[in-house]
């Protein structure tokens, strides 16, 4: 069965540290990849997405992610985190689906990021 794995459940960093959150998926076909973020008390929102083209994608707030097809990975990175990056981060994979106009997004279990000021 298709799945998305986020191996880090809780990451604690100090401000200005570099961040990398791992995401691996299991599906051999064409996929679209997403990172969603949920700040405390706020909606789940899209951070960045990969559909095709350059495998290094830039998102909001200085985040980027790299799609490595051979490793089935889509890791999220940020060179220097801020206290305001404290949130829960979800990796997601969009698979082709049996319906003609709706498709299935599979989410990872999430990584809680805590930034120490």
């Amino acid at each position, binding site marked *: 069965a298709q799945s998305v794995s986020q191996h880090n*459940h809780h990451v604690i960093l100090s401000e200005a540290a570099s961040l990398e959150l791992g995401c691996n998926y299991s599906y051999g076909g064409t*996929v*679209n990849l997403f990172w969603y973020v949920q700040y405390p008390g706020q*909606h789940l929102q899209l951070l960045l997405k990969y559909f095709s083209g350059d495998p290094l994608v830039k998102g909001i707030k200085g985040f980027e992610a790299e799609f490595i097809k051979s490793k089935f990975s889509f890791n999220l990175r940020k060179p220097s985190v801020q206290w305001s990056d404290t949130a829960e981060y979800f990796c997601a994979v*969009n698979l082709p689906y049996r319906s003609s106009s*709706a498709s*299935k*997004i*599979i989410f990872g*279990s999430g990584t809680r990021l805590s930034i120490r000021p």
Partner: protein
Amino acid sequence: SQTIHQWPATLVQPVGSPLSLECTVEGTSNPNLYWYRQAAGRGLQLLFYSVGIGQISSEVPQNLSASRPQDRQFILSSKKLLLSDSGFYLCAWSEPYQGASKNIQYFGAGTRLSVL
């Protein structure tokens, strides 16, 4: 611009009571609609999705049901709640006919349900 509303924000219900959570979308037509449950440490699990009025697809067998009585209204229901139904429920929408693999979903604020 498009907006999505979910209510109530929090709900405490006794075991065996009925449930009705509502989600409405504004600013778009014929959206795809989704219900997810977010359990602590377990990510988001897709419960139902709908591509049109009266069209509901269920992803997992469970105690819940969904209905879409109007184009931009999606309702999650139960006749008798179980303790295991406690969780955080999220509604989401996406544009129609984007193609099966370009589906950006936009989420509501969620409903935290506690079944006691």
